[in-house]
Structures are given as C-alpha cells and as structure tokens.
C-alpha cells in the first residue's frame, strides 16, 4: 500500500515539474502544430488538390473534326485529371521547364481516321523524372480514348455487318454513307445505356467519408508519432538527469523500493504521453478535420498502447546510454530514422516493397498502421486490437530489457 502511494507521488511529481516547465508547451504543442501545418500543405504536392489527388495534362489539339474536342472534354471529366487546351509551343516549353509532367498531342487526322476506321496513334509526352504522374495519366488517357472510339467502332461494325450480308447491292437499299450515318446515330443512342457499369467504392467502415485533404491524413498521425516520441523519450530519460544530479540516490535512501521509484517515474511519463497524444489528436480533428473520432474506444486503445511502447523505449534508451547529454544525440539518431522507416514522414505506399516490409518490424510502422486504420478505414476496437497488441508486445520487451539493464548509481 505504502509502495503504491509512493509510486503515485513520484508520478505526480513528474507531471507537476513537466507541466510547470514552459518548454513542455513548445515541444508538446507548438512544434507539432507547426510541423503538421507545414508538412500537411507540403504533402499535398503528392496530390495538388484539397480532395482526391489530381494530375494536370496539357492537350495540344490539331484535330480539324469534332473528336479532338470531345476527347479533351472526356479527359477533363475524369475525376483525377485536369485537362487544359494548350498550344504546342506553350506545352513544350512547360514540359521542358518541368512545370508540366504530361502532354498529349492530338494529330490533325484523328477525326478523319476514326470515321474512316483507320488506326491512329497519339503521341503522349512524359517526363523521365516524373514517372508516377506518367503512369497514372497514361491509364486514364487510354480509358478516355476507348470511350471516344467506341461509338465509331459500333457504327463501323454495323456497316461491316451490312456489307457481309450484301445489303448494299440490293434494290431499295440505302447507300453506304446513308447507312453509316444512321449507324452513328444509333450507336450514340445505344451508348446512353451501357450494359456494364463499374461501381467503385473504398473498403472503409467510416460512417461518413469526409473529404480530408490528403496531406493531413498523413501529416496529422505522422507528426503526432514523431513528436510524441521526442516528448516521451526525453521524459523517460530524464531519470538519467536525476541520477546525475543525485536526487535519485537520495530517493534510494528512503524505504521506497527501486522498482517503485522507476515505476512511478515511468507512470508519470506514460500519463503525460497519453495527454500529449490526445491533445494532438484533438487538434488534428478540430483544426484539420482529420476524422479521429469515429471509434473512441479503438483510438483510446491505440493511444494507450503507443504511449506505453514509447515510454518503454525511452526506459530502454535510458538504460543503454551513460549520460543524459548522450540522449540528445541518440534520440535524434533513433527517432528520426524510426519515424522515416515507419512511414511517419511520408506515405509508406510510395516506398519500395522491402522498405514497406522493414516498417513492419518497427513500433513506428505499427503505430502508423493503427492510427491510419482508424482515420482512413474506420476500424473499431475489435479490428484495432491486434495492432495495439503488437505495440504492447514491443513495449513489454523494451521495458523488460530497460529495467534489467538500468543502473541506479
């Protein structure tokens, strides 16, 4: 009983000194907010829009007929594309300067070729340094081309069927041109009712899918993970400071057991960590509309598991270095790579496969997975428990090693 009382007192003392210190405000609130804002805006470079990611394409239209314009309209209607008319010189200069990553050239003979049933190849210019845009836009343009040629294809098929049936040699039959004209009208009418449609939807349990700017669904959990690591690791390693200043030795002379002292300290760090993460979650929800609050229980499980894991990591670090001053260098070397490899600095989707596998060996990789599962997939408590469990497991291992290796004097 007495030990528990001491444990709580030590934890309380830690919290009191932490929140009395003004630097807590800077590390705990001001810096993460600045980072989330700046990186959230910067990250939209991947997306360039506030909603779904979109890509710009310049179209140089030399076509004399109607199909060129129709193609541009078709491209612009694609939800991920923004097509703009451009002169050839303009587009080439922009491509050269790197202001534009893709350009489509519509040759003069597009309409006449299509009508005559001839194949046409459209030059599609991409930049070697922007292969990702090229890949996405190429598939979208191919789909638009298919739509464009569909009605011509249908009409021409009908014409060739009529030829196979020898229709035009018979008395009273229409001319080929007349027949084709009719066929084109019929094709356009028929296309209004497509036999097959594609229903696309995201696999998400979110009740309502909010349009969160894509940069913030990365930056909000990412910076939360990075800064709570700094905050908690520094907190846990402050026990080294107590050792150096002699306050730890003084505590050891009291009847309080070693484990109680360590436990009280870590409990304080853990509580401050939970408060810190919660604060950043609330700010992410309120300031950046990141949907954190779909399942409060799942979120609570992740926050507690992550705070525990990182508190233990801080304990382990405190056990492995000799002086408090070393923590500065070590935490930079440890936290930033952990954050990068775990996917807290940029979306894990865009790194090579083996790097994605590495992330799954790190607590940061699991933390990012869990937090993103909550905001993007709308996971509830049952779905999030395995991820939270992995974090707890990391935590238990770190804690056991840390307590075992820690030198009190």
């Amino acid at each position: 009983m007495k030990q528990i009382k001491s444990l709580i007192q030590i934890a309380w003392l830690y919290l009191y000194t932490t929140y009395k210190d003004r630097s807590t405000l800077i590390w705990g609130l001001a810096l993460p907010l600045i980072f989330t804002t700046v990186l959230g805006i910067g990250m939209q470079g991947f997306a360039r829009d506030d909603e779904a990611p979109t890509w710009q394409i310049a179209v140089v239209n030399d076509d004399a007929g109607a199909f060129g314009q129709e193609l541009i309209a078709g491209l612009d209607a694609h939800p991920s594309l923004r097509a703009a008319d451009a002169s050839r010189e303009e587009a080439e200069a922009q491509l050269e300067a790197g202001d534009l990553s893709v350009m489509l050239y519509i040759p003069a003979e597009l309409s006449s070729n299509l009508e005559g049933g001839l194949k046409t190849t459209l030059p599609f210019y991409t930049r070697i340094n922007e292969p990702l845009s090229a890949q996405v836009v190429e598939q979208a343009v191919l789909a638009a081309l298919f739509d464009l040629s569909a009605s011509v294809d249908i009409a021409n098929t009908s014409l060739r069927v009529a030829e196979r049936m020898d229709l035009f040699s018979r008395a009273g039959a229409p001319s080929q041109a007349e027949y084709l004209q009719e066929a084109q009208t019929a094709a356009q009418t028929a296309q209004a009712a497509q036999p097959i449609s594609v229903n696309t939807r995201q696999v998400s349990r979110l009740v309502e899918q909010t349009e969160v700017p894509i940069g913030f669904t990365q930056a909000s959990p990412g910076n939360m993970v990075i800064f709570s690591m700094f905050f908690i690791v520094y907190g846990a390693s402050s026990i080294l400071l107590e050792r150096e200043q002699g306050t730890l030795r003084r505590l050891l002379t009291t009847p309080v057991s070693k484990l109680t002292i360590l436990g009280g300290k870590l409990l304080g760090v853990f509580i401050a960590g939970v408060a810190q993460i919660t604060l950043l979650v609330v700010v992410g929800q309120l300031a950046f509309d990141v949907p954190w609050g779909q399942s409060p229980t799942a979120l609570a499980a992740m926050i507690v598991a992550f705070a525990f894991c990182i508190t233990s990591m801080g304990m382990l670090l405190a056990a492995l270095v000799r002086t408090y001053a070393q923590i500065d260098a070590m935490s930079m070397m440890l936290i930033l790579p952990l954050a990068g490899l775990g996917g807290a600095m940029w979306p894990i989707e865009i790194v090579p496969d083996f790097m994605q596998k590495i992330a799954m060996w790190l607590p940061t990789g699991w933390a990012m997975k869990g937090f993103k599962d909550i905001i993007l997939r709308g996971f509830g408590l049952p779905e999030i428990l395995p991820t939270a469990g992995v974090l707890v497991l990391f935590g238990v291992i770190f804690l056991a090693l840390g307590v075992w290796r820690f030198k009190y004097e």
Partner: protein
Amino acid sequence: MKTLEIAIKDTLTRFRDWKALAGMLAAPLIISAMIGLAFGGLSSGEAPLQDIPMALVDLDQGELGQAYYDVLTSPDLETLIALERMQDAEAAKARIESGELRAVLVIPAGFSDNVIPDNEGNSGTASVELYTDPAASVSPVIIKSIVERISASINTLLLAGQVSGEQMAQYAPLLGQEMARLGEAIGAELQSSNFTFEDPPLGLEVVTTGEDEEPFDPFAFFIPGMAVFFLMFSMFEGSRSILQEERRWTLQRLISTPTSTWQIILGKMGGTFLTGLLQFAVLVISSSVLFGVSWGNSIAGLLIMVVLTVFAASGMGAMLTAFSRNENQAGVVGSAVSLVFGALGGSFFPADGLTGIVNIASRLTVNRWAMEGLLALTVERGGLADIQLPVLVLAGIGLVTFVLALLVFQKRFVK
C-alpha cells in the same frame, strides 16, 4: 591571435566528442541514406508502381468474367498488376483492410448471362464491383482506369452487336430468307481483329522527355537538406557551450585573464563557425564518396555557399543563445528553431511549392536560402551567377546576427 587559439581549441573539443560527432555527421548521413533508399526507385527511370496487389473474385464463371481475368493478366499489365484469383468476396475485402491488397474486383454471379443477349436478342445490364484501399492514394486511380477500360471494351462489343442487329432488322424485307444468317454474320464480325483489347483504334505512343537532363537524384536534394538541418543543431549546440562555461565559471575565469572579453567571445563564436565549416566539409566529401552525390560543377560557388551558410547558421545560433536566459532555455529554443527552420525551410521537401504566409515564413529561415543556393548548384548544375541572391541574403543574416550576438554577449559578461 588569442581569438584564433580559442576557436581552434573549441573546434577540436567538439570533434573529439563522439556524441557530438553522431549528431553532426552520422545522423545526417544515416537519414539521407534512408531517404535515398525510400525514393531511389524514382531516379532509375523505372515505373515507380509495380506489382500492385489485386484480387479478382469471379462469381460469374462465365465468358465475361474470364475476359476480365485475361486482360488483367495480359503482357501489357503483367508488371503493373499482381493479380490473384479468390473465391470469397468478403475474404478478399478483409485483405484490403489488412493492407495486403490494394483493390478487389468482384464479378457477380450471372454477370455474363445478364448482359450477353439471349437467342431473342434480349439483354439486360449488370455491374462489376471494384473495391479499393482508402489508405492508398495512387494505385486505386490506376486500377480504376484499367477496369473501366476493360468494361468499356466489352460494352463496345455488346453494343456493336446490338446496334448491328437492330439496324439490319429494319432492312429485313430486303434480305428475306437471308436474315437467318444475321446472327452468324454479327458473330463473325465481332470475332474479327477490330475488337482486340490490346490493339484498339486509338493508341498511345509514349514519348519520354527530359532524358538529356540529369535524372532526379534524391540524394542531390536530401543530402544538402539534411546537412543544413543538422548544421543548425550543431550551431546552436556550439553557441550553447558559451553558457555552459558561464555556468561552470570557466568563462569568468577566462575573462579575468588579460585576454579581452570581446576576443574571448569572438573566439568562442569563431569556434562554432569553424566546427560548422568542418562538419559541412566532411558531409560534402563523405556524401560524394558514400552516395556518389555530385555537388555541382562550380567549386567556387559551393565554397561560397558553404561558408555563408555556416556563417548565417552560426550567427543565428549565437544570437538566439545570447538572448537566452540560461543554458536550458537556449537548448529548448535551439532545438525548436532548428526543427521549425528545417520544416519551413525545405530541408524535408522542396519549399518552392509553398504559398502565402507559410512561404513568407519560409523565406525568413536560414535553411530556405541555403537550400536555394545549394540546389541551384547540385540539382540545377548552376554556377556563381545563379546563387547571387541566396549569397547576399545569407551574408546579410550572418552579419546582422553575428554583430548582435557579439554586442549582447559583451554586455552580458562585462560586469
């Protein structure tokens, strides 16, 4: 002379300290290596997205379900999509949730029967269901385009048959008995080469431009970024040692010697500056040896940029330290300013996309100007003429902050 002695002694002390070295040299190199690994694929000219994991759940078991499978596994899409067949739609969707799959295409039961006309020529409509991963932003867009294109090609085929039949029916009186041959004629036409997915009437010829440019080298961006980022840290750390000496009374002891106060302070600040210079030089050399980073074609330009960047960074460090109440406060302010400068100033991502107030804030950082000048040399292969503005701004920042720091320190220690 005394000033130089103090500066050199301080520099040597810093370089004998392994943990200082870890922060100054190892951290930027490790982080750059990691970033290089993460984004290295972008520089090789290879398609960045490959083997997008996707499952096909074909409950139709008919002709059209097979058509989707055939196209998705065709040679054109082989490297882009890693397709597997699954039996259970719910199990497949669960694998999107677990992050194993980016997309699942479900062809419902009776799909082919619904849309392929029966003997009377009657047909209905049906839809395929495409489920995508909300945690991915790029690959679902690609998959969606492909599935829509396959669906469009089947639609065209079906509609071509339908329109041909309907149109010919109008001329049934002219054809008489031969109308019986119509079904066969349509079938033969649709089988002809005009309807292959691989060879549509409109195709693309992909022309890759910019090959004469240097391919994007992630190291050419991130090494200078990290070098400047960690330089800020060590410049603050270095300046902070003045306050450390104040706390330990070694500074006061020094001041009591015949050496004048401003000489001592200048020596201390000079030591930080020399440390930064050495740190940056080592980073330049080791990054070109380890990662093959090219620091540009202008040695004079690089030299000027490095000296002025270190000058501005050490000045900034000295000034903020001079205004700090004590060592602790200087530490907090230093780390905070280094981090904020890094984020705003483009050490982590190119800052030229920033707009508005964030851009103005970015322009106030040492990092932004240092990066602008260094990237003009490394990425754009520019020369002296391309770095004039950054050089002027950095020199200005350095001069103002250095003088301010000197005055404030002087006032602080001469009592």
